[in-house]
């Protein structure tokens, strides 16, 4: 590569790459054989024996932490302490299962506002996350300049630039183009909702990625609503994944409440991406248990019964049942996990609330670079 003109500017990603390389990360911890089994990805979690592995328990622990944190932030909002919140409740299996299949600190995660579990999985602490919601000093993504969860964390490969739905899809494709040009083996996963799939940017980006066989995973968290607009007013087809064929990439529908199915589908897509076979579109059928955001009142547009029905496949419950049935978890341990999560979230809440607001010194800074102009 020729001389870099802006090492000081773009160094973060390079450092992240080096760190990942040093740590020897090359593949996820669950064995490849299970994930290449085509059949399994269609099996429902509940009908399936858990792999004989501690990872599921660990994933359960993380899911509980995320749920606990999510509930806390919602409560803080209701108390008038936290800003607008888009809850991840019902999306956790999709988020944790997919991150688990990828290489943290190396792969790039273009996320959207509902990806709380992705943030946690990639290394943000509950304190850091809550700081986003109370807009406090030390918020790591944007210095509390942006809405909670927005901004970027290059070391962790987190990018969540803006609130403008779907704009990040071509950007993620651009990140993958960069990876390909540099000869890196990096995968870019782009999370987005069913709503985002209607945007022109989604079409243009998928087409571009398919043409260039870029290492991208388009990960659609289909929760059947764009705020209040139900699927039937968003598309005349049954699935977002059905669009994939028209771009020349595989489209995979997966039960997004089944963490193993999500893991496997993502792992396969990552393998395709890394081996030069191009992008995939995964559609994870998830549920949104709460209103669109804390500003929304979903009782106006959907029934309580619908939500109760959806809760039957709560990803947390599904994983718990599996762990119980395979005797990896018992009541005592469950309570311990819950207690741990509460304590972590309690401490985080306190720490975040106690932090000061950011100083205003930087108000005019970072509009353009100092070296520029």
């Amino acid at each position, binding site marked *: 590569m020729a001389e870099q003109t802006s090492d000081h500017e773009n160094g973060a990603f390079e450092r992240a790459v080096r760190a990942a390389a040093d740590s020897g990360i090359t593949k996820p911890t669950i064995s490849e054989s299970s994930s290449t089994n085509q059949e399994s990805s269609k099996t429902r979690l509940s009908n399936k024996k858990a792999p004989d592995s501690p990872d599921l328990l660990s994933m359960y622990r993380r899911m509980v932490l995320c749920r606990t944190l999510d509930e806390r932030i919602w409560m803080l909002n209701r108390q008038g302490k936290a*800003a607008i919140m888009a809850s991840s409740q019902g999306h956790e299996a999709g988020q944790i299962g997919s991150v688990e299949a990828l290489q943290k600190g190396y792969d790039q995660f273009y996320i959207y506002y509902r990806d709380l579990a992705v943030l946690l999985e990639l290394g943000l602490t509950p304190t850091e996350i809550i700081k986003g919601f109370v807009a406090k000093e030390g918020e790591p993504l944007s210095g509390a300049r942006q*809405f909670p969860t927005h901004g970027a964390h290059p070391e962790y490969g987190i990018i969540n630039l803006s609130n403008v739905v779907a704009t990040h899809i071509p950007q993620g494709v651009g990140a993958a183009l960069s990876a390909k040009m540099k000869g890196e083996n990096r995968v870019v996963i782009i999370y987005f909702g069913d709503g985002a799939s209607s945007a022109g940017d989604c079409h243009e980006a998928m087409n571009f990625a398919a043409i260039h066989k870029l290492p991208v995973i388009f990960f659609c968290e289909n929760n059947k609503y*764009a705020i209040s607009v139900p699927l039937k007013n968003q598309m005349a087809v049954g699935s977002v994944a059905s669009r994939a064929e028209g771009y020349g990439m595989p489209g995979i529908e997966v039960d997004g409440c089944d963490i193993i199915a999500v893991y496997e589908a993502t792992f396969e897509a990552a393998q395709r991406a890394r081996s030069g076979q191009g992008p995939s579109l995964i559609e994870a059928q998830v549920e949104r248990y709460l209103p669109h955001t804390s500003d929304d009142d979903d009782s106006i547009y959907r029934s309580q019964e619908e939500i109760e029905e959806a809760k039957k496949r709560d990803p947390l419950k599904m994983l718990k049942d599996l762990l119980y049935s395979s005797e990896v978890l018992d009541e005592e341990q469950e309570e311990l996990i819950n207690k741990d999560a509460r304590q972590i979230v309690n401490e985080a809440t306190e720490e975040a609330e106690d932090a000061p607001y*950011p100083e205003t010194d930087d108000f005019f800074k970072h509009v353009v670079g100092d070296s520029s102009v």
Partner: protein
Amino acid sequence: MTIKTVLEAVHDAMQEEMRRDETVFVMGEDIGARGGVFLATEGFLQEFGENRVIDTPLAESSIAGVALGAAMHGMRPIAEIEFGDFIWPTINQIVGEAAKVRYGTKGKLNAPMVLRAPHGGGVRGALYHSQSVEAFFAHTPGLKVVTPSTPYDAKGLLKSAIRDDDPVIFLEHKRTYRLVRGEVPDDEYTLPIGKADLKREGSDVTIITYGLMLHHCLEAAETVEMDDIDVEVLDLRTVRPLDTDAILATTRKTGKVLIVHEDNKALGIGAEVSAIISENAFEYLDGPVARLAGPEIPAMPFAPPLEDMYMIDSEKIANSIRQLAEY
């Protein structure tokens, strides 16, 4: 007369026009069952049915483009963009196409459509729920851009916008929605697009403004009464076309003009107002045409101290008035 909020005024204007004229319809995200994220179309689905109240997919370019197509074929769509910050995908259809329909067909077609969007900040909306977007449209021949500040103006102007035979961009400052109340006639009325409104008469200094800032300017005008400064406040109401006559009349009267807007300064509406004054009333000026505008940063940051630093308030305005008065 009834006391209404800006939001109610917007709601009522659309409802009345939809009752009056069957070619009027609304389309946008969440405007159906949800009644709009700000409830501007609350109850519309029930009253007008899903043929005239269309919940669209999340796809702003087509919201504008489909509305434009319908407008060219005898309908009068009101398209809602959920937040001004999401209006950028419509620029191709609005600036590129709608604005040129009439000129490009030598008047054979026209596009009687309204593109509504709540915009502006001061609501802890951070970078992407706070942007001011008026300048982009106000630069474009073929468009009209309305930025009301009171319930009375909002209702009368929105009704005119709906009846207008050309594309109108109607920008409602979201902070005014529930904050600003005022009297609205019970009888039907409309207000002319392109006419500014003198919201306060005075003789020493003129403030020219629009939207939310009007209220801060009026407050500041009262504050500086104590300093014996008599302030005139002109509310532009429409930022394209600008009411040049009203701008020049007040300039000739006071000789000192301060322009106030929330949008950032460079190439904001204030630039054009200032240039118009320089060109046409240079001899009447007793001091430089001053601008007080948002800082040159991308939009309001989220944390309260940062947002406060962005927002212009009556104190900042009062200071600018005093400075200009002393000149």
